[in-house]
């Protein structure tokens, strides 16, 4: 894996007028190597996905035969229908949707004012919040999950989607706050002051100036929260036992253990179906996510 490092970037600033002869000389043989390296990465990253897709479209007979080709003989969608039925995917997806959507709403509503305060006011809170955001990454889940389990058990929130929502809210909050604070900090304070000078009240400034500018950041943050809770496994494993309340990752893991090893096509189909929502969301926000992460990181 390391040899792909070999061709370091030649100076190819995208639109700058550079006419340096040394780089042009080397490019003739570095370019093919770079493409070769890129191809290697694409195979490593992309092939498992193609394999999953092709497996999901194969018939059980094709999967059993040892010399079947990589591509399925014909597109066979039966696995998807069977997987939904057998693994109880619809119910699990409903549970996941409920938990993830509720978490997203709560996280967005409570992190918006907090992110604004952390970005705009210079109080001790900022330092405390930064330390907490860092610390929350450090502590292993096991330390938190045992007491949380005990507490939630006392108030009847174990085996209850709402308990999961509560845990996910706190679990997603550091990152959401971090991202959102970056977006708020990127909005020039001058704009708010201009609004204030023009006679707009505090709330008016927030609603008419800050919120519209923050909309892309809010979308990115909330989608990220949604994906995180949609994909989460560990807390769900500890807090949910009732099969009827299981979220998608739990159901998949259980299906995998039960009969998925035999019904490969269905397992692949179920895995793909579980990935689609977050994949779609992710492709929508990928650009914003990158910029949001970086503005959050840089403006510390």
């Amino acid at each position: 894996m390391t040899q792909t490092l070999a061709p370091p970037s030649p100076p190819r600033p995208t639109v700058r007028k550079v006419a340096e002869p040394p780089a042009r000389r080397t490019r003739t043989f570095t370019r093919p190597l770079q493409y070769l390296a890129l191809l290697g990465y694409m195979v490593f990253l992309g092939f498992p996905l193609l394999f999953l897709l092709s497996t999901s479209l194969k018939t059980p007979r094709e999967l059993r035969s040892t010399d079947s080709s990589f591509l399925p003989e014909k597109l066979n969608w039966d696995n998807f229908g069977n997987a939904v039925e057998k693994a109880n995917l619809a119910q699990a997806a409903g549970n996941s949707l409920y938990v993830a959507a509720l978490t997203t709403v709560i996280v967005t509503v409570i992190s918006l004012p907090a992110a604004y305060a952390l970005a705009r006011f210079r109080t001790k809170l900022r330092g405390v919040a930064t330390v907490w955001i860092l610390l929350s990454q450090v502590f292993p889940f096991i330390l938190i999950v045992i007491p949380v389990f005990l507490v939630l058990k006392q108030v009847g929130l174990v085996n209850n989607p709402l308990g999961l929502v509560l845990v996910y809210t706190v679990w997603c909050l550091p990152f959401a706050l971090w991202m959102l604070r970056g977006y708020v900090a990127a909005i020039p304070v001058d704009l708010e002051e201009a609004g204030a000078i023009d006679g707009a009240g505090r709330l008016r400034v927030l609603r008419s100036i800050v919120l519209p500018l923050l909309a892309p950041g809010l979308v990115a943050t909330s989608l990220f929260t949604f994906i995180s809770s949609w994909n989460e496994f560990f807390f769900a494993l500890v807090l949910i036992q009732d099969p009827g309340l299981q979220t998608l990752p739990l159901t998949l893991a259980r299906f995998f253990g039960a009969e998925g090893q035999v019904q490969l096509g269905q397992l692949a189909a179920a895995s793909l179906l579980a990935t689609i929502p977050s994949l779609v969301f992710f492709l929508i926000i990928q650009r914003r996510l990158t910029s949001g992460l970086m503005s959050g990181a840089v403006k510390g």
Partner: protein
Amino acid sequence: MTAVAAPARRRRRRGDGRDAWLLVLPALVPVVLVSVYPLAQGILLGFTDARAGLNQAVHVNGVDNYTRLLGNELFWSSFRIGLIWAFGVTILQFLASLGLALLLNLNLRLRWLARTLALVPWAMPPVVIAIMWRMMLNPTYGPVNDAMRTLGLPGDINWLGDFSTALPAVIVVGVWAGMPQTTVTLLAGLQNVSPELHEAAAIDGAGAWQRFWHVTMPALRPVAVAITSLDLIWNFNSFALVFVLTSGGPGGETMLPALFAYNEAFKYGNFGYAAAMGNVMVIVIAAFLFVYLRGQARSRES
């Protein structure tokens, strides 16, 4: 953002402190209830003999858990595996992501496709990643063994079931799963590298490797330090991927500390003992975090 001292801002200043608290309050309440309080309790639990089950009397037993842990060879072997896993994944991830980020920073064709592919693992649930790779690595129908056979290599390796290959195989999957965050961060860091410096170095006759080492790397260092340290923490604490891939097997060969503590707590019901393991893990991570913060502070100074 820091050096603004406009009159309008100064006028507001008096109310700032209380306003800030009010705005943060809705976030603070759940955090204290579900994060700070349980965390404090979890740390304390590590000094008790708490067990699962109703009406179990809990006694504070001081450092008993830790003296017991000292003699628990299984735990230390799991700890060793956890460190190999965390460092292995983090280092390989960094090297692979750095190479990919450098390539993505060039004007290559198909760059958009590689960029999208590099992000996909981020969107996938760890459970799905694990299921997918278990299929990939399956000894009979897995395409990895197929490829080995085509190349004339032994094609009957039980990657996840064999003592010698299980940990390396799991590490490769960990690299695959964690590449997006690292690549994206490094790519963003690369965009801060000044092209002028590169040009100047090229005009002065620096080769590609020299420019990478003396221009790109110093500019990338703060970002690289930050992401590798975060990766190390995330990897050391990671659970779902390996839980589904191997559940710690074969014979505990991939038993990460998080898995070990989970089993101790929820399989055997030894809450106090498991929390003690968590405390030991925190101390190790905190030591790494200390190095990370100090490293960052130093690079900022220079």
